[in-house]
């Protein structure tokens, strides 16, 4: 089984802390569970059988049951000790999570939308700021500070291999700090019910070494190239003269609306529509033609474009690497 989206295969320090606490807690709970069932089994084995006509045993009302008292008091005392151990471990882990060193951190702003993710990469130089959708790259070994905002309703940001979740709440800004320690591709998914397509609000996190991350970021900062062949050129013109550009931005072009995912480098992304389908020309064509069939309720309306125009659009979008 792949560890694409799995709590117990941590790939970062934060998820690692939590996994340690998990195994400690589960071990302790397993001991308690076995002990209670053993106590119950012993009781069932020890007690003689009776029926509804047997006279009730009222002796307990008249003499103290010291053995019973000892058993209950001991069991309760042990339970309290166990709970204190769990509490201590939990608070210590929480503290560890809160004290991740943040020198040299990458800052990313995440905006949750019904039903896709927007990632804005912050930079002191405004021209170096860029934005991507449903795909996030982070450098291995460097802390990442993620600022979370909701564009509409409450969502929850969750990449189980890297950290627990954090909600995106309208009217508030929340943050989460994490660090990937193993290179790899991880899947994240919205964890707070957010309406019709909550099931398909996923994203990909690519953790790679710093050099690869920088190369990727530099590529993302580049505006879209001018299409060279005629078909892509036609697609570009259709995009800019049709309804596409009313929602989707493509940097370096006149499309600068901000309502829908940034398509400047769409062809470089692994999936379409926040993890709904793989990103290939067929998928892209099917998506443009009828998003409502693939993701009912999605904000993108169906477009009844003739086949040749669809081909041209797809050809253009495929140039946006």
């Amino acid at each position, binding site marked *: *089984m*792949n560890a*694409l989206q*799995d*709590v*117990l295969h941590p790939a970062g320090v934060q998820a690692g*802390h939590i996994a340690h606490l*998990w195994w400690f*807690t*589960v071990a302790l*709970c397993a001991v308690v569970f076995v002990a*209670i*069932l053993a106590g*119950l089994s012993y*009781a069932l084995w020890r*007690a*003689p*059988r*009776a029926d509804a*006509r047997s006279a*009730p*045993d*009222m002796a*307990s*009302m*008249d003499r103290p049951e010291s053995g*019973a*008292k000892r*058993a*209950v008091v001991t*069991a*309760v005392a042990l*339970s*309290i000790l166990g*709970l204190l151990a769990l*509490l201590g471990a*939990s608070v210590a*882990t*929480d503290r560890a999570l809160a004290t991740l060193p943040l020198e040299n951190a990458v800052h990313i702003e995440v905006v949750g939308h019904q039903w896709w993710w927007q990632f804005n990469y912050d930079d002191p130089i405004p021209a170096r700021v860029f934005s991507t959708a449903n795909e996030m790259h982070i450098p291995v070994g460097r802390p990442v500070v993620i600022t979370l905002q909701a564009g509409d*309703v*409450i969502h*929850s940001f969750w990449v*189980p291999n890297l950290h*627990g*979740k*954090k*909600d995106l709440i*309208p*009217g508030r800004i*929340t943050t989460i700090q994490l660090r990937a320690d193993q290179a790899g591709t991880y899947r994240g998914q919205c*964890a*707070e*019910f*957010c*309406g*019709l*397509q*909550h*099931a398909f609000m996923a994203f990909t996190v690519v953790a790679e070494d710093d050099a690869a991350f920088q190369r990727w970021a530099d590529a993302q900062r580049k505006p879209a190239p001018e299409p060279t062949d005629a078909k892509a050129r036609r697609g570009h013109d259709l995009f800019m003269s049709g309804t596409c550009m009313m929602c989707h931005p493509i940097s370096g072009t006149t499309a600068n609306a901000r309502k829908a995912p940034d398509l400047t480098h769409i062809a470089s992304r692994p999936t379409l529509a926040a993890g709904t389908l793989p990103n290939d020309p067929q998928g892209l064509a099917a998506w443009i033609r009828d998003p409502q069939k693939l993701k*009912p309720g999605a904000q993108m309306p169906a477009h009844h474009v003739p086949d040749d125009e669809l081909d041209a659009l797809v050809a253009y979008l495929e140039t946006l690497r």
Partner: protein
Amino acid sequence: MTFDAQLNSDAPFNFDPGRNQQPEDKRDGPPWGSPQALELERTWREPPGLVGWLSAVNHKSVGKRFIITAFCVFLAAGLLAAAMRLQLARPDNHLLGPDLYNQIFTLHGTAMMFLFAVPVMQAMAVYLLPLMLGTRSTAFPRMTAYAYWMYLFGALMIFAAFFLRAGPDAGWFEYVPLSGPEYTPGHRSDYWAQLISFTEVSGLLVSVDVVTTVFKLRAPGMTLARMPLFAWAMLVTAFMIIFAMPAVMTASTMLLFDRTFSFHFFNPSDGGDALLWQHLFWFFGHPEVYFIFIPALGFMSSIIATFARRPIYGHPAMVLSLIATAFFSFGLWVHHMFATSVPELGKAFFTAMSMMIAIPSAVQIFCWIVTLATGRLNIRAPLLFVLGFFFILTLGGLTGLILGSVPLDLQVHDTYFVVAHLHYVLIGGAVFPLFGAFYYWFPKITGRMLDETLGRWNFWLFFIGFNVTFYPMHHLGLRGMPRRVYTYPADMGWNTLNLVSSIGAAIIAVSVLLFIVNVLKSRRAGAPAGDNPWGAPTLEWATTSPPAWCNFAAIPVVSSREPLWQGARDATSPGHVAGLATDVREGLVTTVVDALPDHRYVYPSPSIWPFIAALATTFWFIGSFYMPTAMAWGMIPVIIALTFWFWPAQDETRKHLLLEKRA
């Protein structure tokens, strides 16, 4: 002569309502079959005909309706769960679209929590408490009837909305802003918000009734220290409801105002706050889990004592544990919100509280195990369900500790791990004891035993099916499957576990079907139960099965915690008090702590007005979101109905005056 025999004296109980015998002496006390007892029966029975049926106020009629309605909701919401399991049995399934699926999981949660789990516990209390406490009625019979009608109309409304494809679809928790006017236009969330009003009115009224009944109507001599644990559990629950429910009522009303009158309580862009909703909802929502769980603890104690043939070990510790659980449960709500932004210190506090609440539950579990170990066991279906509790609830309690820990919660929150946990706690902690309670009290309610063999099949299929359904969900959650998704991609590694879970759901369905067959079969052809088929210690088993309309021919006097077992201890038998009127519904009110006879009290007679008032209230509640002005004028019919309800009837006043003059 034992108390049992005294009540059932030589004359067999063969009450004939047609016989219009008017005894000279209108005071109760003589045994079944005497003219006084017959008149008592006539006084307490429901009036005939359809109007009579709608006017019923006897706690047993209302309680039975309540239980049956709640069970029907359980079946309906269970079918919704089956539909969800069918949808999730394989990946990329298109059986139910997202719109229908979201309505289904919302209604499943809403109905199970608001229309089944809480009401069914209250229903059991309405039916059983007067019998167990040795009295003839709950304190406010008309109010209880009204509460039942409100509950029924609320349930009908929400299911009707669902069948009209206007069912709420923002989850049983209806988080804003998703449930607000902008993201859920139409009336879907309005139905949900008003359903809360219906269940609140019903739940709060029954709670007031339960508190008053337990405090003031106990049989003479039944001091608080001698009160059965079930009554303690219901008392504690009623107080919790009174404190917790107003929070969600406030929240749902604010939501309705946001939606209907464009208020901005929850709109952050206009000074409102989306998190406010979560605090209000969970301030109610967490205690709610415990007001489903605590009555079940009462069932547990009743059943374990009877089937271990001894009193529960550690009675005072049991009572204190119930009360402690209730207190602590109000300090946990934030553990549903760890993934929002909660300050560090606050998180530590709520983690500590979440762990601490395990202690009183542990105390009770240990006391029960000791009781079983030192008792002599009569292993029958009710006890089996109780033993199932130990396995399932313990596991659910332990995963609860995991959810109480902030770091672990951040991972498993809102995943299938939580779905597993909450079903372990609610089904293991409440539904298993409830089924045990059905098997236990069915003979009292119907006069016939449920079939034991079917009962065992029912138990084992339920137990196995339950674990097959819900255990795999723990692993699904750890493998990253979020809750409330209508489908999932095939390459996530979730397929097998989901299929197993769906198969388990089918096993549960078979088991519940067996229970229904058992009830239908045993109702007519079950072995006759007799008064006390299990040899149980509490007062409800002192009367006939099914109980007479008046419950007892004479109000018992209690001098121990297990009145029907007292003979085994000191060879004495409890007596009774006599002298209450037989021709009006009169009851004995006792003092809160010592249950000393205090004064006599005449109960209201059957009346159609609670039903009509409930109809008027239903019109008001539903009308108010279709016609905002109805929020104001819709009250008028309610006021009229209530006025008629409380209008004193001349003949009753005359009777009461005569009663006063009677020595």
